[in-house]
């Protein structure tokens, strides 16, 4: 099947594979892209379409019109997640800005200073996305600097089957070829370090220059090469998921809900015209039957099917030889922070930038770069997902154990630094915005012992004025939107 062009074989039948094949075909000239569809969708990957602002960057790089995607696939705009049950007070983890800095001092220091003096409105109430979400509204970001909407950012709540279909048709238009069939065997090179070909059940053999495993958690192709999985179960105890069929939706959709329960959490994702309920729990703390009852009680409907088993962790080297695992084949995390589509976008962006050149082979330096940066990004996602587990204030056994769970050295340092003086470290490949970290830390009840000395120099009256100006701006904006 050679016509002189380099051939890439993308394996997978779900959204990640559609994104990969289409992105490669649209970004790189003179590459032949074949997608092998084995008809085996990853149940978990295809369940929730919550995405972060990174999906919009993905669309931008591909030249895909966002409004058209939203319209055609009945997606909706997503401003963030309302998080409750972890600490005393629910909080909103939104995209975009929480208040503007003053004289080079980050807004949260101003808020913390006011907080130490007594009453101040919740941190959330200074966020444009939280304000919009509290009234189930959406407005496009503004390019006018004075408008509160200038600080807005958002992701998309994608309707995955329709989205994947739309991407597949874009891919076909860009030359992606599709083959349907089941893999019977993976043939390796003599040294075992590369894939020579995929043998299909019908006897065909597919050989490619590069194999992209976008098949989800199974990672059947990448698994044929040396495989080292780093398990995160000790830090992130949730290992089972139950979910509902999409049900008709009453609430206009701009945010989703994450609620802690005795042995896990539940999540409500709202699409334009449907809601999906999900329950995540730790099998060590709740039996499947108990979980079904919990689900029924919380969602008002029975879960469909058996629980899905989740193994959280990451692959040490997603790129090995001529095979690259992307998305949940490379990093598997519970869906509490919309990290799964985010990972797909970041992996593809990095892979395309490192794409093997005219002499066909990627150099060890580039493969090491891809793996190193992907690992950094994955670990940072994990740290963010772990934050509510570490800082929860619940009494149940699961939560007490989670609060004492193992922590990465980076997160331990970050927490110590924030607790001491409200400072956030800067990290490479941080998938979350600073304000999301702040909203989470403050929302989970961490109040630093001391504040920034520079913030302490600002007169209290100036800080109060600033806080009031932000509140007034947001209030006026909400009134005009009505």
């Amino acid at each position: 099947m050679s016509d002189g062009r380099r051939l890439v074989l993308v394996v997978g039948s779900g959204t990640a594979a559609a994104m990969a094949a289409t992105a490669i075909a649209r970004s790189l000239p003179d590459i032949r892209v074949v997608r092998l569809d084995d008809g085996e969708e990853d149940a978990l990957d295809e369940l929730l379409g919550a995405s972060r602002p990174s999906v919009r960057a993905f669309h931008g790089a591909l030249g895909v019109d966002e409004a058209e995607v939203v319209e055609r696939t009945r997606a909706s705009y997503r401003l963030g997640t309302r998080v409750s049950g972890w600490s005393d007070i629910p909080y909103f983890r939104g995209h975009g800005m929480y208040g503007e800095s003053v004289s080079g001092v980050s807004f949260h220091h101003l808020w913390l200073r006011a907080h130490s003096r007594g009453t101040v409105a919740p941190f959330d109430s200074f966020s444009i996305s939280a304000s919009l979400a509290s009234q189930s509204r959406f407005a496009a970001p503004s390019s006018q600097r004075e408008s509160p909407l200038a600080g807005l950012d958002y992701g998309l709540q994608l309707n995955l089957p329709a989205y994947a279909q739309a991407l597949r048709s874009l891919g076909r238009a860009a030359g992606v070829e599709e083959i349907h069939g089941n893999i019977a065997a993976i043939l390796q090179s003599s040294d075992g370090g590369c894939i020579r070909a995929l043998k299909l059940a019908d006897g065909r053999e597919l050989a490619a220059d590069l194999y992209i495993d976008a098949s989800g958690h199974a990672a059947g192709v990448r698994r044929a090469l040396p495989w080292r999985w780093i398990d995160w179960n000790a830090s992130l105890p949730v290992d089972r998921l139950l979910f509902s069929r999409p049900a008709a939706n009453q609430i206009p959709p701009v945010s989703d809900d994450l609620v802690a329960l005795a042995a896990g959490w539940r999540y409500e994702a709202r699409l334009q015209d449907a809601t999906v309920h999900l329950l995540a729990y730790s099998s060590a703390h709740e039996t499947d039957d108990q979980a079904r009852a919990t689900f029924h009680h919380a969602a008002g409907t029975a879960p469909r099917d058996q629980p899905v088993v989740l193994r959280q962790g990451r692959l040490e080297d997603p790129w090995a030889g001529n095979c690259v695992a992307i998305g949940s084949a490379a990093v598997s995390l519970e869906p509490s922070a919309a990290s799964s589509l985010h990972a797909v976008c970041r992996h593809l962006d990095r892979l395309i930038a490192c794409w093997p050149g005219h002499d066909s082979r990627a150099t060890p330096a580039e493969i090491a770069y891809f793996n190193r940066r992907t690992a950094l990004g994955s670990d940072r996602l994990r740290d963010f997902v772990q934050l509510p587990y570490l800082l929860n204030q619940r009494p149940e056994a699961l939560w007490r154990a989670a609060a004492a769970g193992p922590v990465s050295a980076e997160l331990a340092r970050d927490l110590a630094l924030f607790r001491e003086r409200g400072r956030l470290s800067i990290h490479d490949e941080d998938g979350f915005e600073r304000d999301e970290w702040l909203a989470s830390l403050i929302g989970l009840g961490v109040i630093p012992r001391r504040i920034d000395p520079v913030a302490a120099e600002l007169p209290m009256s100036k800080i109060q004025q600033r806080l009031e100006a932000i509140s007034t701006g947001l209030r006026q904006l909400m009134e005009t939107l009505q």
Partner: protein
Amino acid sequence: MSAPAHSNGDDVPRLRVVVVGGGTAGWMTASALAHVLPTRCSIVLVESEAIGIVGVGEATLPHIRAFNERLGIDESNFMAATCATYKLGIEFVDWGRIGDRYMHPFGSSGRGAGGVGFHHFWNRACQLELPAGQFGDYAISVAMSRQCRFAPPARQGGDLTTAYNYAYQFDASLFASYLRRIAEKQGVQRIEARIVGASQDAVNGNITGVKLEDGRTIAGDFFIDASGFRSLLLGETLGEPFEDWSHWLPCDRAVAMPCRTEGALSPFTSSIAMDAGWRWRIPLQHRTGNGYVHASAFIEEQKAIDSLVAAVEGQPLANPRVLRFKAGRRQRSWVRNCAAVGLSSGFLEPLESTSIYLIQVAITALLELLPDKEVSDVDRDEFNDLVAVEYDRIRDFLILHYHATRRRDTPFWNYVGTMPIPDSLAAKIALFRARGRVEPYARGLFLEPSWLAVYLGQHVVPRDYDRRADGMPLDRLDIALRRMRVEIDQAVEHMPDHADYIASYCAMAGERP
């Protein structure tokens, strides 16, 4: 011991800060602390005029502008007072090979497309033998430098003709005096005295005061060691070990000698490779600073002095002065209740004008991490981390200049061109050579445009480029490259001459000597 009082920003007792040393580092620190945290600390600075300062005419990086802005310093006033000129980058002469000349500009080159950096397109054009010229031909600051023109960039920057930044070249001793005036106005108390030692708490080893020659002791809660190479508190009193990098950066001496400026006033610093090191040329309003940074293992001092005297362009304005140093840094910059700022924390040769930048890094971190009376380990560790990462990044970038050379014409160049390099740098170079990728980092100095300038200026050219660059048809690529060069030429054509701009905006008082 009881826990420190909860500090919410109000009613905290003033921290008594003692700054040891009054050079650039000392006065920058004192003025910044006094200006930004006026109610938080009371500051005493101890300096001795007998000691003198190392500053020999300083070339800076654009970050200095943020420092000045934060202190409310008026640019034209400051430039006039320090005899400053503008700086658009650094010119490197004879580095990759004898006869080479390239610039490391403060700004980016060219205009990329579709999320793909310009250098990939440029590399492709070179491989296809299009008349693409040099990489620097696509940086407006390079064109401005070549023609000795200057105009500040438009506020709405970012495009080809506005994607540049600038710094200053100034007289560091005048800068220190300028900041001293600001600091003293803000209440900093200056004590003129020679320091003979420090007293320490017998239990926890904290510094309790510095002892002066006249028998007085200046007590404090927190100490800033700005004593220069001597590292009086951090090195001598606290004994923090020095990490020696001289096997990678063997230059350990500099001979400095100012001279009259001949010819046009360049808006850039030059770094000219010499037999056993390199020579700086920093044009100020009233003179040009020169210095030969060299490795004593490869050249005798007198020979280095003679080479410098022979090389300078105009009449010498002072006798040659020799400075001694060693590349490396203290393992930690903040130990107990003492933070080192400037040369007392480490030294990297001024090849990329990073000395004042490193001072600034320490000050910015101090402003945000200034302790209460009791130092928290968390603050100290964060400070040390921030400073160390900056030193380490700059170190690698400097070593690249020596490593990426084809020169083998003297023992010095033969040594640096073949010496082993840090693994961290080797990995960066391997990644770049493959496909022109510069690994981004969130912390630390020197971003992609800087690495590109030095790599490409010293013949480290990637074998391949980002495959997406193939998406542009050849004729369009050719037109795009031509258009960029024309746009730059046209924009620079309307800019004033550097010397004229300075004369009308910020001329120093008096006449040029």
